[in-house]
């Protein structure tokens, strides 16, 4: 069965897929962060998603009332448990996306929600595209999702396009010199390494596409 809209079940499937992916990628993310940061991005996200899974396992009475409510819980859990730079950024992004998301979001509505998440990241962290941050994965993903929606793509296809774009965006951070976050302290020495946050952002979008395709 492929999902046509982002309903509560798919939202939950997405987050559980993402948690598993984070667990698998922990060492890789930490290795990326060791090169140009402080070597904790993997453990930060693992800690966050462990708490998120606990929150999903103890849903409110009667379950989450909407995919948006579920994502808002994901966001506040990440904000409350992760710390560091990525904690508030992802946390506020999920909260903003959840607040924007209608109960049964089609690809266009999903694009709007993701755009709201991106806007939250940019408002909080002040990063521009090209600053070598998770914005560099999220921004192209929003564009790709919106473009796919406009051509009437299914949710599975649209989110796959978004994940592709995010992965490209993450890869394209490699030559960039960081201007935000810890990597920016390295100046020119930050080039030649892929940004850990952009990498994890792409991973989260791939998890959505995978869940939507199932």
């Amino acid at each position, binding site marked *: 069965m492929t999902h046509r809209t982002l309903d509560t079940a798919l939202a939950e499937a997405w987050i559980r897929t993402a948690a598993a992916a984070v667990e698998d990628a922990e060492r890789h993310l930490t290795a990326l962060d060791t090169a140009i940061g*402080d070597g*904790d991005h993997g453990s930060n996200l693992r800690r966050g998603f462990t708490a998120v899974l606990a929150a999903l396992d103890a849903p409110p009475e009667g379950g989450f009332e909407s995919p948006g409510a579920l994502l808002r819980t994901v966001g506040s859990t990440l904000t409350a448990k992760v710390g560091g730079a990525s904690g508030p950024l992802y946390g506020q992004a999920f909260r903003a996306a959840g607040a924007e998301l209608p109960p049964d979001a089609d690809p266009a509505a999903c694009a709007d929600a993701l755009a709201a998440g991106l806007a939250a990241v940019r408002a909080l962290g002040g990063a521009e595209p090209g600053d070598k941050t998770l914005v560099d994965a999220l921004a192209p993903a929003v564009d790709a999702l919106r473009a796919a929606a406009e051509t009437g793509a299914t949710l599975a296809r649209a989110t796959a396009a978004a994940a592709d774009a995010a992965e490209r965006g993450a890869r394209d951070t490699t030559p960039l010199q960081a201007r935000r976050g810890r990597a920016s302290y390295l100046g020119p020495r930050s080039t030649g390494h892929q940004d850990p946050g952009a990498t994890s952002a792409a991973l989260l979008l791939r998890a959505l596409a995978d869940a939507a395709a199932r």
Partner: protein
Amino acid sequence: MKKLINSPGSVVDDALVGLAAAHPALAVDFERRVVSRAVCPAGPKVALVSGGGSGHEPLHIGFVGPGMLDAACPGELFTSPPPDRILAAAQAADSGAGVLFVVKNYTGDVLNFRLAAELAAEQGHRVATVLVDDDVAVRDSAAGRRGTGATVVVHKTCGALAERGAALEEVRELGERVVAASRSFAVALAAGTNPETGRPGFDLAEDEIEVGVGIHGEPGRRRERLRPANELAATVVDAVLEGNRPGPGDRPIVLVNGLGATPLIELYVVCAAVTARLAEHGVTPARTLVGSYVTSLDAAGFSLTLTAADRLMLELWDAPADTPALVRA
């Protein structure tokens, strides 16, 4: 990796248990990881709250006590605490005269303290923030300079001013002036090893040093050959004075700080070298503090902080304090 720990994941919690055992004057909320004073100030006074990633001890947990912080919220190793932990520290500390957040300028600290300030304001706390960004090794980053050694000077002087009954705005303003008057720069002989990864933040050859290094294992501006302490001190003093020469009325406070695994005898050697180089620049320190106050796990090396203090700052620097890591009679 050789460390006196039980497991990588339990370091912060275990250390807090040890802190509580050694310092009955501190109240430690293990659940929420908040360290505050066991005996609250007599009347309302501006509360100082600081925190950030762990691994920089005694910063911040060792500076809680009369004359300095009212509460500290330590995060995971090298990871700033999330907003609700910071909020819990603010709640523990607020005695009715408002709360000053002293925040080191790292994206994580800035964002989490910002969200915490919003939450605290929603709950009726008056909150102001001082952002510490003294590390001149950082140039051309939109994130700005990092916060390091000057944090100790802010804790000490703002803490003393708060103890005198100054208002929140006044204490914040002092903090900003101290930050504006402060510059730091660090050199590492070896990076610290985060027990979570088991690997040093970066690898250096037997004769290499990292110049302009950060306190989270961030590599520095450049890699150089190890040189005699006098030469390293000259490099570091010159970097700290660049574009920030203390004025004629200034009474510089100097902090010669170890990064965690630096023996005190080496810090005194560095102190001699720093003092001599400052003299060549015509700068005579009014006060010099030597010790390991802002560390980076078991990194070896030192940082220098210079605060071009005015008379008030110096008076507050000398004021009484009674904390685990800094006591002034």
